[in-house]
């Protein structure tokens, strides 16, 4: 009964999505307030029904109702409650329902935080979001009904893929989806602006916090996914350039470009059509990501679907979205006008340079990800594009981005003197190069890659310090507290996020240059040495869990005779699917991780053990945290609320008039 209610609620949600897609749009074009006003309640009602539907599905998982096919295939009565709940999205149908729910949640957020916007604009935004929702809800109902029954019911479920039974997986998918889907708001704002012909600074200001918040979610989702791969896949890597990772990285790169381009459009009125194009592309890449991940075209833990109908449906959706929005763009963009002019040496130019580079980087990931799929689809042979390609592309593309990123904030808007600006940053730049070379010598790993990475990181840190110092001394005479208070949250956000990039580069460079790995055969009491640490094997015990059997090794780690940690890596066998799993054990430190994973047991009773020394790897995630915090600061800037109040008055006056 409950699954049928969930199914029915989903149908009702689709009906409301249709209403939300059609009625406010008509209202906006005919200027009828009553029709425009339908958008908000329709969106909120839709959210209620999707939430209800989602709750019904979760209930089937919690109750181990194995007459629901999805629960039978992805849950097990002995699975811990937490993983029963997260198992709901550990499959194709459930994850799409989560997609639809995040879209609906974003739409509700728009209905709540848009009181200050003109009604016609809100109506169009909700209309666009309604159409996206119609697409996804009908995809769910037509090809991927999560509530399909399995008759007769089976006695026991097949359990969730053990790789997904992990705390990281509790938050990774929802965060990532909130990020992916969040770009739909920026997209809807851009389409609404194209429709109304109103593409001005106010539009950019309205879009900015939404884009930034979506970007924060995406950053957090990617970082957690990377962390999960690091400790769960058992071989110590943190990024694999796997198509699924690329699928989330492409919208991230374009989203980053979009945030900066929006800044220029808001401050200077320039880059308007470019900004709109970026908003359309970022969302299209989010959809493409969904297609890559969910259509089953790639080998991955994420690819659930094998039904070609589903792949075709998403592909059709993608073609419609991209086609319609580009047509609209081609039709409307020429009428939008250019916007503020700017000089050759100006903050605009530096932001434009980075925008181009980020877009090329995104396109290069697209090429490396899609080309093998195309060749395969056309039957022209199978190839693969691995990490060497992406590394060969990303280092030269990102180096100028990082240099410009810290140079741009020293430049004035509109026009600046190149000589003066270069003289200002030259000491920091030269010092960075020296620090890069010096540190590489100090750590005993002098390769061009290490030197470059360390120099770039030093550049980011030194320029950040100089930027902050300059900002504080700007208002000479005022008290220190007043000077700090005069700095806006948006500025702190920029500063923190850029500093986060520097911290991230330190992590990537040092773990790339100095990490060490040893695969070794160990028996009780045997020692192994790696990077100054001594690992002593203390045997293996049984350590069975609720839905798996496990062998747990105990390994003592010492350094110079002093104990560092006792690590307990496991080899698990998940009973329901008969699937083995490696559970690594990590001693996490601020400057290094010591990472141990258990291989297999061989004939003479000893075990294969993989030992890893990972210097500064936590800095990678620390950098991501700083970027995320920066984004939160920027989105929370008071300016948006203050100007929102002003816009509200204007909007109210328009309504009266």
């Amino acid at each position: 009964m409950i699954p049928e209610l969930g199914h029915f609620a989903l149908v009702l949600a689709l009906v409301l999505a249709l209403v939300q897609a059609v009625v406010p749009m008509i209202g906006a074009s005919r200027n009828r307030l009553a029709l425009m006003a339908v958008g908000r309640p329709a969106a909120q009602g839709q959210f209620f029904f999707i939430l209800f539907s989602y709750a019904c599905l979760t209930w089937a998982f919690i109750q181990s109702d194995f007459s629901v096919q999805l629960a039978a295939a992805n849950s097990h009565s002995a699975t811990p409650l937490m993983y029963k709940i997260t198992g709901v999205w550990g499959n194709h149908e459930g994850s799409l329902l989560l997609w639809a729910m995040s879209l609906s949640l974003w739409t509700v957020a728009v209905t709540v935080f848009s009181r200050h916007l003109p009604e016609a604009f809100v109506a169009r935004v909700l209309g666009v979001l309604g159409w996206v929702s119609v697409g996804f809800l009908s995809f769910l109902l037509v090809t991927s009904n999560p509530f399909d029954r399995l008759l007769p019911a089976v006695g026991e479920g097949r359990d969730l893929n053990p790789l997904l039974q992990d705390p990281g997986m509790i938050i990774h998918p929802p965060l990532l989806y909130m990020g992916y889907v969040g770009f739909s708001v920026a997209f809807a704002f851009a389409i609404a602006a194209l429709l109304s012909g109103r593409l001005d600074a106010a539009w950019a200001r309205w879009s900015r916090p939404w884009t930034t918040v979506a970007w924060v979610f995406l950053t957090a989702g990617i970082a957690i996914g990377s962390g999960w791969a690091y400790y769960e896949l058992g071989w110590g890597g943190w990024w694999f350039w796997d198509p699924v990772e690329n699928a989330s990285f492409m919208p991230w790169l374009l989203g980053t470009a979009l945030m900066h381009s929006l800044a220029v459009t808001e401050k200077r009125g320039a880059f308007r059509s470019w900004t709109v194009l970026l908003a359309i592309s970022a969302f299209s890449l989010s959809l493409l990501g969904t297609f890559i991940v969910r259509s089953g075209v790639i080998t991955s833990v994420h690819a659930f679907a094998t039904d070609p109908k589903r792949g075709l449906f998403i592909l059709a959706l993608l073609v419609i979205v991209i086609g319609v929005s580009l047509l609209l763009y081609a039709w409307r963009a020429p009428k939008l006008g250019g916007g503020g002019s700017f000089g050759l040496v100006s903050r605009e130019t530096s932001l434009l340079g980075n925008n181009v580079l980020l877009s090329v980087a995104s396109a290069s990931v697209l090429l490396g990800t899609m080309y093998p799929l195309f060749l395969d689809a056309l039957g022209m042979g199978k190839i693969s594009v691995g990490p060497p390609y992406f590394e060969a592309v990303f280092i030269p593309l990102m180096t100028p981005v990082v240099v410009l990123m810290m140079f741009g904030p020293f430049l004035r808007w509109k026009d600046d003197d190149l000589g003066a600006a270069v003289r200002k940053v030259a000491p920091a730049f030269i010092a960075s190069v020296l620090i890069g070379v010096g540190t590489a010598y100090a750590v005993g790993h002098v390769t061009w890659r290490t030197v470059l990475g360390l120099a770039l990181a030093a550049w980011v840190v030194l320029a950040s310090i100089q930027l902050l110092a300059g900002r504080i001394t700007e208002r000479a005479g005022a008290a220190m507290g007043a000077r700090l208070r005069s700095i806006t949250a948006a500025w702190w956000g920029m500063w923190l996020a850029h500093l986060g990039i520097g911290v991230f580069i330190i992590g990537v460079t040092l773990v790339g240059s100095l990490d060490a790995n040893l695969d070794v055969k160990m028996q009780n009491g045997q020692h192994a040495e790696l990077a100054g640490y001594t690992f002593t094997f203390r045997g293996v015990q049984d350590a069975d869990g609720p839905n798996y059997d496990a062998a747990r090794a105990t390994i003592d780690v010492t350094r110079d005779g002093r104990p560092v940690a006792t690590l307990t890596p496991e080899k698990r066998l998940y009973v329901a699917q008969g699937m083995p799993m490696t559970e690594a054990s990590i001693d996490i430190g601020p400057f290094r991780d010591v990472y141990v994973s258990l291989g297999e047991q061989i004939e003479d009773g000893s075990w294969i053990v993989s030992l890893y020394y990972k210097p500064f790897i936590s800095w990678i995630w620390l950098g991501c945290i700083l970027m995320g915090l920066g984004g939160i600061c920027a989105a929370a800037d008071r300016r948006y609320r203050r100007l929102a109040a002003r816009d509200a008055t204007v909007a109210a006056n328009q309504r009266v008039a």
Partner: protein
Amino acid sequence: MKARSKRLMLVGGGVVLLVAAVALVLSAFQQNLVFFHTPSEVAAGKAPTGTTFRVGGMVEEGSIRREADGLTVSFAITDTAQVIPVSYRGTLPDLFKEGKGAVVQGKLEADGTFRATEVLAKHDENYMPPEAAHAVEQASKAAATVSQ
């Protein structure tokens, strides 16, 4: 400088930057493609020596052997028609098993052994790497043509 020439320089600079970036991407792309060959193609000498490529198929039953060091593993990859001996040093993926699909990446040695630097297996029990499935399918198609 006049506004017109300024604009021209900006556009020109942008185009140069874009062309350089695209050239970089394409050349890196060409140098780093990894091709896939079936065991039958490798046996027929169609695979390159000295460059990295991938071979996929089933791990032949009874072929997994460990060297005395316990770390070097040798096994054979087959598409049911031809068998390619593979040697690999390191930890194998959890789902690497005899009779199951696997893809190996590495180089072909002069003695006909494939020295793998990477071994990929399935992500779950029911999933077969597409490359492996493709190799077996090709071989069975070839066998069907021969028997006709």
